[in-house]
Each structure stands twice: as structure tokens, then as C-alpha cells.
């Protein structure tokens, strides 16, 4: 009698240690090998885009904190840019520099988290994630110093930033940027980048070809790992990024290892940008006076920023009222996640987890 063999269907998530939240991956598994993957999103859907139509433009800023809660500053920034574009508001120089500084600090914090969680998915027993958390905490301390919040900062405002930086901020930032973080990155290089086991686990795992990356509209480290140099900060500069000097790290093979090294290099480039921004930081007002219940003229605007996850776009339509008529968010996590099936089919379960970790999704942003 022949033995009947059929693939097993396994629910990876929504309750699973490595799905980074409540993401669900229905995997058909033949032995250890994945035959098919179905993605199920929506467990964290909070209908923010609809809720925003009931609130004023200023009241919508905290929503952007809670989308990608690991990169709240980038969300704030992207949304404020779109409303400023719609209402044609000039932002003072100092505010633009502060936005760049905090945006880059947020990139460091988010990439720290992404790297640590990725190594955890590779199976390390929490050590790298704790080291990365330590450095993320240092950045969050600076956020707390400035705006009182660590995670959901709600710092940017339409027309500037909410508060000017306190006196003790710049010395602390200089210590962080010139002393603590470079040392920490050296530790990462020793512990993670040169690690043979990480290479064995992450090289040639979750490969994205350049064609697939462009066709699937990927962005951020996912796109750059495939060998395509594309960064909104260079391609469509916002704030004062056109005055900064920095390089775009680009990978070779489009695999998980490339994405990890790109994130670590991007953190170093962020420090470079912060150093330049602090050196050029002008005085003056930190925001322009904008009415709280701002009524932009009827029309539409789309603005995009390079968030740590990729291209974060905000599309706002105004009908002249105090609330947006329609608000849409182009969430990089969701779009980067869309190629998961192409990346994982044919690999083992262990590889699928590593691949998912290397995408660096944030379910808060995927589901919104």
C-alpha cells in the first residue's frame, strides 16, 4: 500500500514569537520545505484613514505615531510635509534642520530594532537584541528630553516642530553621535556582520531580484539590497537633505544578509547627516504660526519621505474644510511584505522566519 503524503498546513501567527506582531502566515509545508504561503493581514486594523476624516488636520498627527510606532518621527514628518504642501506653508530653517536631526535619530532607533529583531529571528538567544535595545534607548532618551515622549512622540507640527530643543540636548546628542553610537556600531560589526553562522543563515535567503523589486514597488532597504540605488532623500529631497552629504549603501544579491548590512551602514550615514545638521543648525523660530484648525484650500497633495522602512507617502485631499476629505497612506511595510510569497516558497521554515525578519515589517503600519 503506498503511503499517502500531503503537505501540512501550519499557521505561523498571529500568535507566534517571530511574526513581529499579529501577522499571520499560512504556510503549506512539505517536511521542512515551504510549498506555499498565504499572507493574512488585518488583525491590527484600526481604520485610521477613515477616522482621520472626522478630525482636524492637526488632530491627525498622533495617528501617524501609532502607525509605525517604531518610527514615529518619520510618520509625523511625512504627514506634516503633505499638509504643508497642500496649504503652501513655509517652514523656518531651524525647524527643517531639527526635522532632519530627529528623522535621522529615528532611523537609527528603528534600524537598531530591526537589526536586533532580525538576529533574534536567526536564533540568537537575545544577546544582539538586547545590545540593540541599549542603543535604541539612548536615542529614545533624547526624544524624551525634547518632547517628553519616547515612543509615540507627536513632535512635528504643521509649520514646524512642537518644541525647541532644550539646552542640554546638543551636548547629549554630540556625546551620542560622536562617542557612544560609533562604538556600538563597531560592536555590531564584530558580533553580527562577521559572524559565520549569520552568513550561513542569511546569505541567499529571501532573495529579491531587481526586476521583482521594481515591479512590486518595493522601497527602502528591501529595494537597495537588490542593487538599485534609490533613496527619497536623494531622489526627491525634502527638508534640507539636498544640503547634506551622505552615501546610499546598496547591496549585491538582494538577500537577508544584504539588508542587514545595509541597515547598519545606513545608521552610520545617519550619524554623518546628524553631525552636519548640528554643525549648520541656524537660530530663529522653531515653527510658524499656523491656526490649530487649519483649513487648507481645496485640492490634493502627495508627499513622501524615506522612513526607515522605505518610501512612506501621505496623500491628502482637502475640500476646504477643517478635516481631510480623504487621507491615504502608502505604507512601506505593507508593500514590502507583498513579495513574501515569492521570497519564501522553496525555502525551509527557518529561512522563512529569517526572511520575514529581514523585511522589517511593522504590523501597526501594515494594517493601519
Amino acid at each position, binding site marked *: 500500500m503506498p503511503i499517502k503524503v500531503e503537505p*501540512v498546513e*501550519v499557521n505561523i501567527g498571529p500568535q*507566534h*514569537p*517571530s511574526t513581529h506582531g499579529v501577522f499571520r502566515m499560512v504556510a503549506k509545508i512539505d517536511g*521542512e520545505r515551504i510549498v506555499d504561503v498565504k499572507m493574512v493581514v488585518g488583525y491590527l486594523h484600526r481604520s485610521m484613514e477613515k477616522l482621520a476624516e472626522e478630525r482636524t488636520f492637526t488632530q491627525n498627527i498622533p495617528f501617524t505615531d501609532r502607525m509605525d510606532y517604531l518610527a514615529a518621527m518619520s510618520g509625523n514628518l511625512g504627514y506634516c510635509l503633505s499638509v504643508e504642501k497642500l496649504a503652501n506653508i513655509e517652514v523656518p530653517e531651524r525647524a527643517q534642520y531639527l526635522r532632519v536631526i530627529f528623522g535621522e535619530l529615528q532611523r537609527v532607533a528603528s534600524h537598531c530594532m530591526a537589526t536586533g529583531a532580525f*538576529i*533574534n*529571528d*536567526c*536564533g*540568537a*538567544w*537575545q*544577546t544582539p537584541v*538586547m*545590545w540593540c535595545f*541599549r542603543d535604541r534607548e539612548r536615542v529614545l532618551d533624547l526624544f524624551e528630553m525634547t518632547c517628553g515622549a519616547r515612543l509615540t512622540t507627536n513632535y512635528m507640527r504643521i509649520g514646524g516642530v512642537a518644541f525647541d530643543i532644550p539646552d542640554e540636548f546638543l551636548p547629549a546628542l554630540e556625546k551620542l553621535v560622536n562617542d557612544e553610537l560609533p562604538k556600538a556600531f563597531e560592536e555590531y560589526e564584530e*558580533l553580527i*556582520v*562577521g*559572524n*559565520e*553562522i*549569520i*552568513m*550561513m*543563515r542569511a*546569505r541567499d535567503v529571501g532573495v529579491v*531580484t*531587481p*526586476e521583482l523589486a*521594481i515591479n512590486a514597488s518595493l522601497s527602502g532597504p528591501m529595494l*537597495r539590497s537588490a*542593487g*538599485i*540605488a*534609490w*533613496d527619497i532623500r*536623494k*531622489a*526627491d529631497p525634502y527638508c534640507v537633505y539636498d544640503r547634506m*552629504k551622505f*552615501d*546610499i*549603501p*546598496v*547591496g*549585491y*544579491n*538582494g538577500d537577508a544578509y*544584504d539588508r542587514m*548590512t*545595509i541597515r547598519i*551602514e545606513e545608521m552610520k550615514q545617519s550619524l554623518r547627516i546628524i553631525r552636519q545638521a548640528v554643525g549648520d543648525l541656524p537660530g530663529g523660530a522653531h515653527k510658524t504660526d499656523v491656526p490649530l484648525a487649519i483649513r487648507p484650500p481645496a485640492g490634493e497633495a502627495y508627499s513622501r519621505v524615506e522612513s526607515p522602512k522605505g518610501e512612506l507617502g501621505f496623500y491628502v485631499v482637502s475640500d476646504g474644510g477643517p478635516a481631510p476629505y480623504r487621507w491615504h497612506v502608502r505604507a512601506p511595510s505593507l508593500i514590502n511584505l507583498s513579495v513574501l510569497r515569492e521570497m519564501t516558497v522553496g525555502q*525551509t*521554515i*527557518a*529561512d522563512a*522566519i529569517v526572511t520575514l525578519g529581514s523585511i522589517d515589517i511593522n504590523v501597526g503600519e501594515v494594517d493601519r
Partner: protein
Amino acid sequence: MTLNALRLIPMRSLLDLITGYWWDLRDFSNLTRMIYKHLEDWGFPDWSIYVISGLIGTLGIIAFIGGVAVINIWVERRVVGRMQSRLGPNRLGPFGLLQPVADAIKLMQKEVLQPASAPGLIYTLAPIAFTVPGIAVFAVVPWGRHAVLASLDVGLLYILGMSSLAVLSVFMAGYSSNNKYSLFGAMRVIAMLVSYEIPIVAGLLGVVLFAGTMDLQGIVLFQEENWAFMVMLQPLAFLIYFFAISAELNRTPADIAEAESEIVGGYHTEYSGMKFGLFYAAELINAVSVSAIIATLFLGGWWAYKLDELVPGWMIFIGKVYGVYFLFVWTRGTLPRFRIDQLLAFAWKWLTPMAIINVVVVAAEVLAWEESGWSAGFWIPVFIAVNGALTGALIFGFVKFFAPKFQRFPTRPRFYPDIDVPSLPAVTGAEFMAKGGQA
């Protein structure tokens, strides 16, 4: 006058003061001698002496293991905490020493859930069967010159059998849980058991060939007689055994059976309450028993050159056990996990051939030793040099010729300082490398 005063302060070691009282546990033979004497006085038959001393020894070992399991929860969490640049448990009691007690109380209070479709007997037996072998191994491990519970002639064989049993109970747990993740853990464990028993046995064969006995006390006495730890004579066997046994112990970098990030908890996904607590404690117990085996076979057990004349043997032994245990904690705190195919490939392609080469070389050495009739004083340094060189050469050669080639692409990304947006080139890695790696 002065000389006399100096003579009054003799150089005393801990062992000088042994009095021969039964409570002087620096030498366990004091206690057994007392028991023997009393039983004889009270007119017990001869055989009952063995039964009663055996029972007392068993109780002592179980008490030790229980203490170790509690202490090691603290040790492991604390040491790994330091490696992770945090403090570790430090709230309950001095230095957080009462943390394991709190953990145990919490686990005991929790309800033990059992899947309705799980076969009850196997499901319940699995945690117990996982705990027993780790304790049973200690029966043949010598604690001192006169302190070994069961001096088996086939002690090493007994240990190998016992450590395989622990893996089998993991399979019991995974199979009976009726959970897909648990089944994955069980499948992985069986694959690993088949692969890793071979390098373990072949690696230990070198030790047995040198010592000429499988009795653990005999192996310690061999090391004492030849004035060399077995790890010097057999560095390759030590490395092979250390890696292979850490795979059998389910510790990183080989903890694929309970890979938390992949298959949730592996074989113990469905266990809760004190059943899970037993798995948790047994993992630490097994780690300690393996450390004890390594300390005995490779590091001289209770013997440590002249030190065992100053300090009781069992103190030296426990010190060595914790030294080896620290190595296990260290690897766990540092390394990521292998994928299962990489792990099995490592066993078959690296450890097994190395172990076989090692056995061949050791057999030739032992033959030369016996046939030549020259003294150990000549041969032991020669063997140390030869085996050290062999270890280095083998590891270097394997890394040189058999290691996976990762350096197809550089580890650092390339940089684009100024990208030209409209004519954005999509450069693939292959094209880039064909052009000589210049951005």
C-alpha cells in the same frame, strides 16, 4: 625562639585537618566508614550495607541535583544578563538569589493544561523521562578518590546510553502533544539523534583507547598517573564532544528542537505548569551532568595536579563542572542558531570524519606506546604535541577546503554618493562583480 614560633604556624591545607569523624565531609569515606561500622555493630547482614549506602548516596546526589537546578536558573539568567548588558534578576533576596524560588512557586500555581487529544500516559511521562537520565548519569561519576556511587566497568557506555534516553523523551513529548510545532521539534530531534550519536561515540573512543578502560574512575586515575589532563592528549575529541553534546542538549547554536523563533517552543509547546517546569529544570540538569562528564573525562575530574592534596576532590570537581557549564552559557549567550540541514551537514561532513581520523591516530599511538615499551614520560609529551598539531591541522584543513564559501559578495555594501535620478541604473550583484566590484 623565633624558629619555634615559626614552627607553631604550620603550612596547613584544608585536608590536614581531616579528623575521621563521620561529619567531616571533606572526605566522603568518613561517612561511609561510620555507616559500615555501625551496621556491623548492630548485626545487619552484609548485603544491607551496600543497599543502605547506595540509598544514602542516591539521596545525596538527588539533593545535589535539586540544588544545582535551582542555583543554575539564577546562574544562567545572571550570567547571560551580564553578557546582554543588563543586570539579570536582582530584586528577590540578595543578588536576586530567591528568583528561582519565585519561578518555582509561580510554575506550581499554574494549571497544567493537557490537549484533549494527547495520549495521557506518554504526555505525562515525557517530562519525567527527560529528567531522569540527567540525574542517573551522576551514578558513575567519581567525586573523589574514595567517592563514587557505582564503579561500573562500562561506565562510559552507561553514560552514552543514558544521554540518548533524554533525546528519546523529547521525541515522546513532541509526538504526544498532537501539535504541529511539537511534531516538527520531534522530527528534528530524531534527525539530530541519528547524526550526532556517531561523532559523540567516535570522539569518546579516543579517550577510551588512551585510558584502556571505560570506568570513569579509571580514566581519572589514568590522567593522574600520566600527569596530564585528557584535554591535552585529546583536544580534538574534546572539541567534537563539546559541540556534539551541545547539539544533543538543545542549546544554541544547535537548539533547533525548541527553536523559539521558528517553531514556538518545539517539543514543549503544549506543556504548562510544573510539567513545563520539569523540562526547564531538566535542561539545566542535563547541562550540568554533561559538564560533569566533560570535567571527568577531559579535565581530570577530582584530580588537579597538586591541588587535590590541598582541597577536597569534590570541591575541585564542582569547580570544574561549573567552569564547563560557563562555556555552555557563554555559547548560548553569543551564537545564533544553525538551520537543521546545516547542523546535520556539520555532523556528517565535519565531526564524523574528524572523529574517525582521530580514532585512527590514537590507535596508532597507543600501539606504538605498547610495542615500544618506552615510558609514559617520553610518550605523553610526544602525544600532546602530535595530537595538538593534528587538531590544528585538521581544523585548518577542513576550514580551508570544506567551509561554505560566503565571500562571493563582500560583507560591506557598496555606496552611491550621488545618484542620478532619471537614468537610475539597476545594477545586479552579478553584473557588478563582473565589472570588478567598482561602484
